[in-house]
């Protein structure tokens, strides 16, 4: 019945999360960084659903549902911010969006 053990789901989730972190830290394009955040959110959702199945409770699925809702809200506001940045700066490279740094 169980087939694949819980640990493998967790390892899959961990690798996906690490890939999301790598993408977020390495890339210089704002939109790709945004997509890396979605990767990390999905990694966490994977863990939630795997634990939810393991313990036979739906609380994990409900948390995943709320994470998805927050991700949708974040996508709407975040992409609007990206559009606003592009309109004023004419670039999306994070190296050049540094006026808060100095």
């Amino acid at each position, binding site marked *: 019945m169980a087939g694949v053990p819980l640990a493998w789901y967790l390892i899959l989730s961990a690798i996906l999360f*690490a*890939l999301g972190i790598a993408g977020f830290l390495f890339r210089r394009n704002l*939109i790709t960084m945004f997509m890396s955040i979605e990767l990390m959110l999905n990694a966490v959702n994977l863990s939630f659903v795997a634990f939810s199945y393991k313990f*036979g409770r739906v609380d994990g699925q409900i948390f995943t*549902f709320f994470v998805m809702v927050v991700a949708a809200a974040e996508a*709407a506001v975040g992409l609007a911010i990206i559009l606003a940045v592009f309109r004023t700066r004419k670039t*999306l*490279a*994070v190296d050049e969006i540094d006026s808060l740094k100095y």
Partner: protein
Amino acid sequence: MVSAILFYLFALMILGGAVLMVTRRNAVHAALWLVVTLLGVAGVFLLRSAEFLFVVQIMLYIGGVVLLILFVIMLVNLDAEARQPRFHRQWLLALACAVVVGAEIVYVLLSGLEAFRLAPAVTAVQTGGSTERLADVLFSEYLLPFEIASILLLVAIVGSVVMAKKRI
């Protein structure tokens, strides 16, 4: 047996899509590989009997969020970006951070599930489908967070309209 094969297939989709998403130069290609990853995650949801989340993942993430990202990619002009280096200046520091986080997760996983001190598994109460139980719990125990989430979505709608206006 079938579920194990499906798990490997979906895991391959997730990891392959994620690696290609992070490394592709063209933002549209990256978004399309993100779709592959999200489809793999949806498949794993189905394997773990989360049918409702499977549908929400496809409709909301792939149909909503990725579509929005593709629209924004087409609204901004990334042709000049595509010719510039993919990775930014502090890539050595970024590599160190990614390796540290990865090593930390691997350490926690290697120390075993026992280190988490999990509660004993509850025997699943298999009355009705997973979606039915989800709805029961969502609209009784989690009613207040559900309403707060709807207000959050309303705030996000108003906020994104205000942000995207020509004159702020």
